[in-house]
């Protein structure tokens, strides 16, 4: 009786969901972030529903199995635009984004009230190497020091000290591809000394991102500048959401997301910018680390390059933009806070351009070289830049390293478009926020 009562109470909790992002799964993540009945958690240990959003490539299935087995009992899975594994019983596949929150809530409710059985483990719960002693005192290695006890390397310091002279044992590990602070799909092998990054090797590149369809249309025929600039601003604001979420500014990250969802030519950035500056984001959280030098910035392109002081922007060659008096905005510095200042400036500029272009009905002119929010696209779309992390992250503290990753848009741009935001999605969001201007 008492247990029933407890379970009933538990089913009233917001559904704790750990999202595993497959290709194009980040859209679902951003949609769920604004759903009041869903709580997105950062660690699989904190969830009772595992959401697999989007198609997961074959090389990331093994990590997915491990994440699946990390959820504490009772747990269940939900598959969004992905076919559930055949041996999982009683799990749903959802294809429509608007159905997703209700389905997650239902899964959680049923799990709590006992209508649905907890999922079963896939992998065997055994350590990768046996914990069995061989040595005289039960130790697993050859001597007291050194050796590979129980098949696990000992933490011995073999690396040059890069900080203050206090050389610590270094710690090497792999993280990803479903770590929430990485771009979807990215995995890296990291060596830490204390919480200082000693070396960084990106092992799996993030999934290519699909930009708004307007950028692909712009490669075929002239498109209204108002439309393309709004898409650009939306892209930047969505990235700002992830960064602010990581920085612990929950409320601001959600307003940024709401602004992105309901973006129109009459939207303004003033409120968000003011609150961001007042919160001390640029002084306390986004500190100067992660600076790109000129060479790296040129290689990277896009807003990151302009934040490092390079005034390269394909829009300035476009006749349509020239009519609007466009000139690229720049920052100097090239670090994390410079990049976010740049992003804010560009969003503001895009909104302004969109307003002017809408009034004067200006269209783009060039079709073979356009500036995407990720960077210039002349012959090929912008390529993956995750290799650059291996160069700039060593020497940063863990938190700064993650802030740097969040500030860089490293994923490549996919060849095919991702479609525009569907009207249903934006309507649902407007209902939730109530401060949309349209």
């Amino acid at each position, binding site marked *: 009786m008492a247990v029933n009562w407890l379970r009933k109470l538990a089913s009233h909790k917001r559904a704790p969901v750990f999202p595993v992002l497959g290709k194009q799964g980040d859209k679902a993540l951003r949609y769920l972030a604004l759903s009041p009945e869903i709580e997105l958690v950062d660690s699989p240990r904190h969830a009772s529903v595992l959401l697999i959003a989007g198609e997961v490539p074959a090389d990331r299935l093994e990590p997915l199995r491990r994440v699946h087995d990390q959820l504490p009992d009772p747990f269940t899975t939900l598959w969004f635009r992905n076919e559930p594994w055949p041996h999982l019983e009683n799990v749903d596949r959802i294809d429509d984004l608007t159905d997703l929150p209700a389905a997650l809530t239902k899964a959680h409710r049923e799990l709590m009230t006992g209508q649905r059985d907890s999922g079963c483990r896939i992998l065997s719960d055994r350590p990768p190497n046996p914990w069995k002693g061989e040595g005289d005192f039960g130790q697993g290695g050859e001597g007291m020091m050194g050796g590979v006890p129980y098949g696990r390397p000992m933490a*011995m*310091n073999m690396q040059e000290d890069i900080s203050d*002279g*206090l*050389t610590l044992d270094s710690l090497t590990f792999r993280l990803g591809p479903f770590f929430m602070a990485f771009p979807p799909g990215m995995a890296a092998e990291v060596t830490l000394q204390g919480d200082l990054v000693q070396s960084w090797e990106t092992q799996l590149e993030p999934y290519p991102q699909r930009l708004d369809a307007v950028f692909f249309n712009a490669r075929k025929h002239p498109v209204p500048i108002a439309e393309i600039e709004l898409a650009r601003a939306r892209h930047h604001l969505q990235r700002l959401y992830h960064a602010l979420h990581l920085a612990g500014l929950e409320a601001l990250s959600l307003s940024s997301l709401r602004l992105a969802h309901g973006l129109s030519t009459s939207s303004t950035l003033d409120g968000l910018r003011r609150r961001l500056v007042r919160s001390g984001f640029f002084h306390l959280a986004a500190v100067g680390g992660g600076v790109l030098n000129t060479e790296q910035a040129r290689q990277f392109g896009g807003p990151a390059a302009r934040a490092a002081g390079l005034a390269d922007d394909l829009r300035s060659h476009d006749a349509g933009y020239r009519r609007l008096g466009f000139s690229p905005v720049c920052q100097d510095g090239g670090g994390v806070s410079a990049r976010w200042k740049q992003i804010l400036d560009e969003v503001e500029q895009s909104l302004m351009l969109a307003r002017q272009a809408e009034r004067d009905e200006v269209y783009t002119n060039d079709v073979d070289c356009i500036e995407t929010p990720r960077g210039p696209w002349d012959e090929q779309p912008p390529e993956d830049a995750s290799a650059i992390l291996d160069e700039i992250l060593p020497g940063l503290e863990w938190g700064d390293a993650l802030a740097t990753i969040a500030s860089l848009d490293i994923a490549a741009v996919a060849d095919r478009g991702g479609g525009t935001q569907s009207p249903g999605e934006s309507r649902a969001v407007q209902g939730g926020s109530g401060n949309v201007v349209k």
Partner: protein
Amino acid sequence: MTLTTLLLLAAALIGIGIYGALSQQSFVMLMMGLELILNGVMLAAVAFWAFSGAGAPEGQLLTIIVMAVMAIEMAMGFALVVAVFRGKQADMTESLTGLKH
């Protein structure tokens, strides 16, 4: 809780401490032995203060001084560990066979 039982407890702590300080190869574990000895000493000092010293304030003062000595011992010990570790990548007493190398 009498003076005798308290002193026996202190003697036991000191005994274990002596064993630890003499037997451990690692510097830091050796320091733990020393700390345990000082733990016993402090307990004995407070016990004497409470039962034999008629509450003379010097008894408590002695304990404070022992605490200061412990802090000094810890700090110097760790400085040595850091210095030795940096040079030799080890923290074993045996690795300190010479003053420089």
